[in-house]
């Protein structure tokens, strides 16, 4: 409705409203046009008012921080459940190796001083722990600890049984593969019993 400037041939500076009404005089310099986005932290011409720092403000600050801290300990703070790995997908070797440090951890967490022993002596381990647990039962103070320890001990027993079962099974497997008994190799020769048939290949 206002008409295009170019079409009327009025010249370059024609705008749809009269400039004087808005307050820009003729021939005055307009501020330079902006070529890039404004800076993220533009310089401030007027400094902000300083914070109110009184006794009241400090007390409320302490209240706020305390409240936040307390909320974290309450049951209302919902945490994400830890994802459990799918053990079936990992090879068996990794499984055993990871379980060994697990076993060491659980044994350390029990109050009784148990040294981490190699896996072949696991049964002896178990017996020592059970003995110490039985001693612990007599103390009334540690009743609850002991019950929890017994539970832990039971859990460990189950784990170790599984572990023992696996290791025994593995050892048997080895024994089945080779035609020689394990004692044959004790003087330091390699395991690879099958490769003895191939005399052409060098034994590494």
């Amino acid at each position, binding site marked *: 409705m206002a008409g295009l400037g170019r079409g009327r041939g009025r010249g370059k500076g024609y705008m*749809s*409203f009269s400039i004087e009404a808005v307050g820009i005089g003729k021939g005055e310099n307009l501020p330079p046009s902006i070529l890039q986005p404004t800076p993220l932290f533009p310089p401030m011409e*007027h400094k902000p008012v300083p*914070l109110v720092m009184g006794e009241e403000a400090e007390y409320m*600050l302490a209240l706020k921080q305390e*409240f*936040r801290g307390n909320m974290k300990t309450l049951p*209302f703070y919902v*945490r994400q459940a830890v994802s459990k790995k799918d053990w079936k997908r990992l090879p068996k070797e990794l499984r055993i190796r990871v379980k060994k440090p697990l076993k060491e951890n659980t044994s350390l967490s029990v109050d009784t001083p148990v040294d981490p022993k190699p896996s072949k002596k696991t049964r002896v381990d178990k017996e020592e722990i059970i003995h110490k647990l039985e001693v612990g039962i007599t103390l009334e103070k540690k009743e609850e600890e002991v019950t929890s320890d017994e539970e832990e001990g039971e859990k460990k027993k189950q784990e170790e049984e599984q572990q023992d079962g696996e290791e025994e099974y593995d050892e048997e497997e080895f024994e089945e593969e080779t035609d020689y008994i394990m004692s044959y190799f004790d003087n330091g020769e390699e395991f690879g019993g099958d490769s003895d048939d191939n005399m052409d290949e060098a034994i590494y």
Partner: protein
Amino acid sequence: MTAQEVRLCGLLLQEHFGEVVERIGTHLLRGGAQNLRTIANETNTPLDLVKKSLCVLVQHGACEFGSGRRGPGSPVEYRANCERVLRVLRYPRYIYTAKTLYGDTGELIVEEVLQRGHMTMSNTVKTVADRLTHNMEEGRSMEYSEVVSAFSKLVETHFLQRCPPVAEMGTAASSTTPSNPDCYKLPHVTLIGRGKRRRSSDDSEEQRGGKKAKMEVESCGDEGIYWQVNFERFHQHFRDQAVISAVASKLDQTSSEIVRTMLRMSEVTTTQTAAYTQPLSANEIFRSLPPNYSISRPILDQYLSLLVDDPVGADLDSPPHIPTLNLQRALANLARATLESVVQERFGSRSARIFRLLLRKRHLEQKQVEDFAMIPAKEAKDMLYTLLSENLVQLQEIPKTPDHAPSRTFYLYTVNQLPTARLLLQHCYKTVANLIERRLFETKENKRLLEKSQRIEAILASLQASGAEPEQLTEVEEMITAPERQQLEALRHHINKLDSTENQVDETVFLLESYIFSTKTK
């Protein structure tokens, strides 16, 4: 439910309830009412976590549930309440107010109820008594009756209210006090006992004692009666405080005392959204004045007429000798003062002058602005355009001719108080959200350092408890190097500053929110 509000709510939920609740809460805020399955599917969260989060949100009143849209047979739908989540920002102020009014006991009661969302009276009393006993010296413990009396005082003055009853199918009606007549009735419970002090050597006894205490709780008799904090009442208190302090700074102490008396007398009779207080006769005011303000009757009348005449002050409307307080106008004045001070601090005192001028004179032309404000034309133009670009000032066109020709149109500058207040409120929400994010960023940057210092503190505490030598203690303390210590100090200083700023921005938020809310309910 603007974008800024949702962002701020998300940050508050994350800080207080964890990320899972934050995800679910934000989803509900953005998406409106949804049922359980939809939430679980759209947020990709396992169902039991969703259930837990919804329980937490409902417990704290941030979420309401009702029957679905398709009628009573459809699954239950959940709706999040943005306003309620934003209240979390104001918790320290509520607790502090309770402390000033009812002492440490009141403070702890309000804090416990805020932390748990809603609690039964017996639970609150026991927990608070235990906490107070813990802080007292050896051998003394807190009587339950003292806590009960503080609790009843809070209920009588309406600071605590009963949670509205929930019907079978989960159709919780919106809790308005008229529909809940037993809101402030205390249950008939006799709680006799003292607070238990928790001693580390008495652990096993405590546990057995704890079992006994649980048995007692069950027979307390106030099962199912839950109490929550009445935020509206606290807001009324804050508003009264703001009005009184405004009068005190504008006029003098005595007039503020008069206003305080008037407000106190109409405290329980005025509903929160009332525009005017109940009419009180001057005689009643005279009788209720605090005794140390011994002013005579004619002077009181003088003060009242002064308050009436003052246009910016307490806004007394006085049909013959029956003064009432126009609370709505008081709030509008407070909000206007806030807007003016914001403009002053951001753009300088001259821009503030222009702003105040426009507020008073409503519509002005460019030339008139320059003349009235006594500012040279070029600078006035510059300031007006800055204010215009920030949307604090609007242009109003008034055409002289029907074809709206620009050369024959008046262009008037104007300020509309209500939209400007809303704009500033959104700015405030954005500010607080930025502050929280910055604080989280600072904490994350220095996480390693913070964890190290926490570990060392724990080691120190355990060493001291087991009676170690001073050399061991100094050895452990030296594990933090001096520059690290400085860094920690600077970090703590920054975090405290950011936290404190949040509290103060919240005061502005409260004023603007009250003003906007008072204009809505007409």
